[in-house]
């Protein structure tokens, strides 16, 4: 067998889903018996059949990718429930096998895939999509690029109606239908607690969490997912604040961003200058501004 053919043959078996009892399937990718499929290219030894040797790799593959996805989306796991999450994760990985050298990118298509395959998003698709978007933004904010930040004095020196500033590439701006930031923080807190809790206590927590998800009511929020001292934080934003930042990210000038943000605003005109000033002070203190770069792309 040529090297490429051998590798395709083995990869098809290794990436074929496990049975419900986490064993290799009896049926091979070509429809025939897996025993025969495995024995075509894997040697048996005095302790293991070809099937059993191949099964070691099949199980390792699935344990590894499912664990990676579970680590990246603990909030989605809570929203869907463990059993539904496991089924969803397997379906996702069949449709989206890793195409990156790093497992970091394994969940990059989760949002778009769930949109196209709503049957895997549970009973509340909007909530599932919200939590996925937040969890992916969290990953991107954690290791996204940072440019040298503009200091408050840099901003105060710069002026004029055509002034442009850029947002740090690692800052993610998102609007949600549900307050998923609270939910994710709660999930993480409980995961931390569970590490040191007894099984009974952990089960109690789990039931409480399921109830908390069920009770979660829609409440539109605007959020910046950002970093302080290399740790990721969620910062709630006012709608106008969100609009200004979004406009700046789109490359609008400072003045155009402010004007467009308040176009349909209910904030009284006399209160707007003070609000904008406070927001800019906060954003620049957080180091969110950097110089605009024409060719930089945000992943």
């Amino acid at each position, binding site marked *: 067998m040529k090297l490429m053919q051998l590798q395709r043959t083995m990869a098809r078996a290794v990436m074929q889903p496990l049975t419900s009892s986490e064993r290799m399937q009896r049926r091979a990718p070509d429809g025939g018996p897996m025993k025969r499929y495995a024995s075509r290219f894997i040697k048996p030894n005095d302790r293991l059949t070809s099937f059993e040797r191949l099964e070691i790799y099949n199980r390792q593959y699935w344990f590894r990718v499912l664990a*990676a996805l579970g680590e990246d989306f603990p909030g989605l796991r809570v929203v869907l429930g463990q059993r539904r999450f496991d089924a969803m994760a397997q379906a996702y990985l069949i449709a989206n096998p890793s195409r990156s050298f790093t497992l970091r990118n394994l969940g990059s298509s989760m949002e778009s895939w769930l949109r196209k395959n709503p049957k895997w998003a549970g009973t509340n698709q909007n909530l599932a999509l919200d939590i996925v978007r937040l969890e992916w933004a969290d990953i991107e904010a954690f290791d996204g690029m940072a440019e040298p930040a503009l200091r408050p004095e840099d901003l105060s020196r710069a002026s004029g109606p055509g002034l442009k500033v850029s947002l740090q590439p690692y800052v993610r701006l998102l609007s949600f239908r549900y307050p998923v930031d609270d939910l994710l923080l709660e999930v993480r807190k409980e995961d931390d607690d569970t590490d040191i809790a007894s099984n009974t206590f952990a089960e109690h927590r789990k039931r409480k969490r399921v109830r908390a998800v069920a009770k979660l009511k829609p409440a539109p929020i605007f959020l910046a997912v950002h970093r302080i001292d290399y740790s990721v934080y969620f910062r709630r934003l006012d709608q106008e604040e969100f609009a200004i930042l979004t406009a700046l990210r789109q490359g609008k000038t400072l003045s155009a961003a402010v004007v467009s943000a308040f176009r349909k605003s209910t904030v009284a005109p006399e209160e707007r200058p003070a609000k904008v000033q406070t927001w800019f002070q906060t954003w620049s203190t957080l180091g969110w501004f950097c110089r605009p770069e024409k060719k930089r792309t945000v992943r």
Partner: protein
Amino acid sequence: MSANRFNGFTDYGIGIGLRAPHYDHILTRKPVVDWFEIISENFMIDGGRPLHILDQILEQYKLVQHGVSMYFGSAEKLNREHLRRLKALVQRTKTPWLSDHLCWGSVDGRYTHDLLPMPYTFEAARITAQKVREVQDFLEIPIAVENVSSYAEYHDSEMTEWEFLNEVVERADCGILLDVNNIYVSSQNHSFNPFDYVNSVPAHRVAQIHIAGHSKYRKYILDTHDHPVIDPVWKLYERAIQRAGHTATLLEWDDSIPSFQEVHDEALKANKFLRATALAEAV
């Protein structure tokens, strides 16, 4: 013999893998460690905490890069994005050599994220060596290939694993990261004498040695890196350094990671063998 062109003529001592649970200890206590090995892929990112930690470590320690997904043995072409990011990291760390595994793990652009065993054929050796040369040329640093633990063998194989390793490194003119734990694991899984393997490796190409623990099951052994090094593996290590000399040695501990001190103490057990070898060489 330890400082050679395959490890940038360095004479590193005993190192351990740089792992997240130890970051705080290393940065606050600043323990004396000869060197750290990093998993390259963990730092091939655009920014954030991992790179910040890396820069702090680089200020105080010697560091070597070890990869897990170059897949020299995959029949498909090299991933250019991977290479581009790897080169940026090499320039950041100034690693004197770089290692990755003698295995495959991707096909048609799909990644298994596993270290899958090679068929020991001349075709595979030719393709693998060509890719090692391409990576070496692109990165402009010495490359060392590491033997992997395996749980399966192919009907197609035309030679032993160590003959295949020799075939690849001679064709590629590259170094070897000799993992004596992997040799032990494979020897148990495939019923060969691990000393035959160690004795057949071209000692002048050994850039680095890996030691580690593993998990024993009823019918096979898994390379889990979650236990101390067992005596039979130390014996292989002893033989390896008798042949290759005082070689840069690294303990891998990747799961159920104990305290920094425990990991470092386990690694420092290698000193006993390194000293004995040095004494024997002096006599």
